[in-house]
C-alpha cells in the first residue's frame, strides 16, 4: 500500500505509530517478547485516532473529505457492484472525465451508477479536472439517468466535487443551463434516486447530480453552498478566514441532518474512509441496499410525490402574520 498522505492533525498519531514500529523491529532483531507492550501501544493509538476523528472541526473534515487517498466514485463502484460497464459521452460532442457513470448489477438488482471522479495524483487530477465537471458531464449524467428511467433502473449517484468547472469554455457551453436542466428533470424520473456525498459536495456542481429521494453523507464528508475559501474572501474579505467560514456555513453531516437536508449520515472507519476503504465501501453498500428496499415499496406516484415534498419542505423563514410559527423542514 502506498504511503498515506498525512493530515496535520494526524501528526500525534505518527509518533505512536513510529514507536510501535520500533518495538516490532526490536522484537524481530532480539526475539524479546513485546506483545504486551505492542498491544498496549496499539490500543492507545486506536483510542487516540478515534478521539481525534471524533472531534474534527468542519475545516478538518474538509481536509479528510479532500484526502488524496479517500475512496472515489469508481473505487466504490468497483466494490459495490458485481458487474459494471462504464458508459461514455453526452451525445452532444463530449465525454467528461470528471463525471463518470455506467450500468451495473448488485446481486440481482440492475442499477445506473454515476458520480464525480477525482484523481489520486496530479497527472490523474489533470485528466479528471480535479473532479470539476463540465456542462458535458452534467448532460452525460442526465442521459444516463434518462436511460435508468426508461429501463426502470434505480440511480445511485456519488457526489465528490469542489464545484462545477468555472472556465470560459464551461460558460460558453452553458454550465448554468446544464445544471438547471438536471435539477428540473431529476424531479421527473420515475425510479428511486439515492445520492451520497462521498467526499466534497461543492455547491451547484454537487446538486447537479444530487436531487434524490434519499441523500446520504459520509461522516467526514462536507456539503457547502459555496467553498469556505470563496465565502471567506467574499464575506470576510480575507481568504485566510476559511476555517471560520467552514464553521459558520454548517457543512457537516451532523449539521445538515439537523437542517433537514441530509437523511442519513454514514459512520466512517477509525481514521476516515481512506484508512479502511473496503470497510467504507461495505458501509455504503449496506446503506444503499437498505434505502433501496425502503423505496421499492412505493408506487411511482408516491415516489415522485415524496421527492417533491422533501424539497418543498426545505427552507426556514418567518411568517409575519403569526410570528411565532417558524416554518422549517
Amino acid at each position: 500500500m502506498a504511503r498515506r498522505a498525512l493530515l496535520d492533525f494526524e501528526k500525534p498519531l505518527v509518533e505512536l505509530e513510529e514507536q510501535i514500529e520500533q518495538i516490532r523491529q526490536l522484537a524481530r532483531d532480539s526475539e524479546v517478547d513485546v506483545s504486551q507492550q505492542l498491544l498496549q501501544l496499539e490500543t492507545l493509538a486506536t483510542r487516540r485516532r478515534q478521539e481525534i476523528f471524533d472531534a474534527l472541526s468542519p475545516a478538518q473534515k474538509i481536509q479528510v473529505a479532500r484526502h488524496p487517498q479517500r475512496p472515489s466514485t469508481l473505487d466504490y463502484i468497483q466494490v459495490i457492484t458485481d458487474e459494471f460497464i462504464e458508459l461514455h459521452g453526452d451525445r452532444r460532442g463530449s465525454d467528461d472525465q470528471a463525471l463518470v457513470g455506467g450500468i451495473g448489477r448488485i446481486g440481482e438488482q440492475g442499477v445506473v451508477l454515476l458520480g464525480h471522479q477525482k484523481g489520486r495524483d496530479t497527472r490523474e487530477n489533470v485528466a479528471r479536472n480535479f473532479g470539476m465537471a463540465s456542462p458535458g458531464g452534467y448532460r452525460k449524467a442526465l442521459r444516463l439517468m434518462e436511460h435508468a428511467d426508461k429501463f426502470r433502473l434505480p440511480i445511485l449517484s456519488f457526489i465528490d466535487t469542489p464545484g462545477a468547472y468555472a472556465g470560459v469554455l464551461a460558460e460558453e457551453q452553458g454550465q448554468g443551463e446544464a445544471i438547471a436542466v438536471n435539477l428540473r428533470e431529476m424531479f421527473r424520473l420515475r425510479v428511486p434516486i439515492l445520492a451520497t456525498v462521498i467526499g466534497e459536495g461543492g455547491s451547484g456542481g454537487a446538486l447537479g447530480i444530487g436531487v434524490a429521494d434519499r441523500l446520504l453523507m459520509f461522516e467526514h464528508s462536507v456539503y457547502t453552498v459555496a467553498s469556505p475559501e470563496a465565502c471567506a474572501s467574499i464575506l470576510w474579505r480575507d481568504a485566510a478566514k476559511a476555517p471560520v467560514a467552514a464553521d459558520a456555513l454548517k457543512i457537516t453531516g451532523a449539521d445538515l441532518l439537523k437542517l433537514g437536508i441530509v437523511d442519513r449520515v454514514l459512520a466512517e472507519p477509525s481514521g476516515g474512509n481512506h484508512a479502511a476503504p473496503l470497510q467504507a465501501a461495505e458501509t455504503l453498500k449496506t446503506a444503499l441496499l437498505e434505502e433501496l428496499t425502503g423505496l421499492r415499496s412505493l408506487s411511482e406516484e408516491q415516489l415522485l410525490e415524496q421527492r417533491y415534498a422533501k424539497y418543498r419542505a426545505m427552507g426556514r423563514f418567518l411568517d409575519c402574520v403569526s410570528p411565532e410559527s417558524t416554518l422549517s423542514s
Partner: protein
Amino acid sequence: MSLFDWFADRHKTAPVARNPQELPADDGLWSKCPECGLVVYRKDLLANASVCKGCGHHQRIDSEERIRLIADPGSFEPMDTELAPTDPLAFKDRRSYADRIRDSQQSTGLRDAVVTGICRSSGQPLALGVMDFRFMGGSMGSVVGEKLTRLIEAATARRYPVLIVCASGGARMQEGMLSLMQMAKISGALQRHQQAGLLYIPLLTHPTTGGVTASFAMLGDLILAEPKALIGFAGRRVIEQTLREKLPEGFQTAEYLQDHGFVDAIINRTQFKSTLATLLHIHKLNGNAAIGNP
C-alpha cells in the same frame, strides 16, 4: 421641442465631447447616465423605462418600477408579503446576518429580495416574480425560494404563465445549504408547471449569476434578456484569477449568451411589455392552454 429631445439631439451630434465633472450630479431632479454621461430629467428617464436615450444603457431598476413596467396599472396583487427571512444558522461574518437583513429591509422597504404576485399584462393574466437586487444583491435564501415556489405552484393551479425577472448574485451564503436547496425546490415546481403544458419565461437582467443561473434563470421555455446584462454561472474574478484564463471580449453579456445559444432574444426594456404581450398571445392561439382564462 422638449428639453429631453434637445439633449438627445445634442447627444447625437457630440456624444463624447462632454465632461461628466461639469454636469449636474444625480440630485433627484436630474439623472446622469453612468455609461455615456448624458444628463436628463429624472422623470424623462423614468418615462423611458430608465433606459438612456443617448446610449441605450439600461439602468438598474427596483422591483416596484419593474412591476409598473410589466403589470397593467392597478392589476398587480402581491402574494406572500408576510414571509420574512430568519437567521437559521445564526450566521455572522464581519457583520451579523440579522443586521444585514434589518439594513436591507429598512433601505428597500421590502421583507426580502423578491416580490411576487398575480397581475395582468396587456390584459392577459400573468404570475409575476421580480427579484430586487438592492436587497442583499438579490441573493436567494429561503424566502426567495419559498415565494417563487408558491408563485409557480399558484400559476400551475390557475393555468397561468410565469414570468420571473432575474437579478441576483446567486445563493445567499448566510443561509448555507438551505439556500442551495432553494434551487432544487424552485426547479421542482417548474417541472410541474412545465408538465402542465404552461409557459414559463425568465427575463435575465443585470446581473444574473451563480445559483440563479444554474436553476430557474435557465429553465425557461423562452429565455429573454436585457441588453448588455451580465449573465453567467461562475464569477468573472473566479475564472480569471483561479484559472488564469483570459476572458474573451463581451464575456458573459446577454449578447454573448445569445451568440452561444442560451438566450432566445434580447429585448430592449422599452419594448418588453409589447413583446411579452405578443408572446403570451401567440401561445394562447391554436387552443393552447398556456394562458389562463381571464
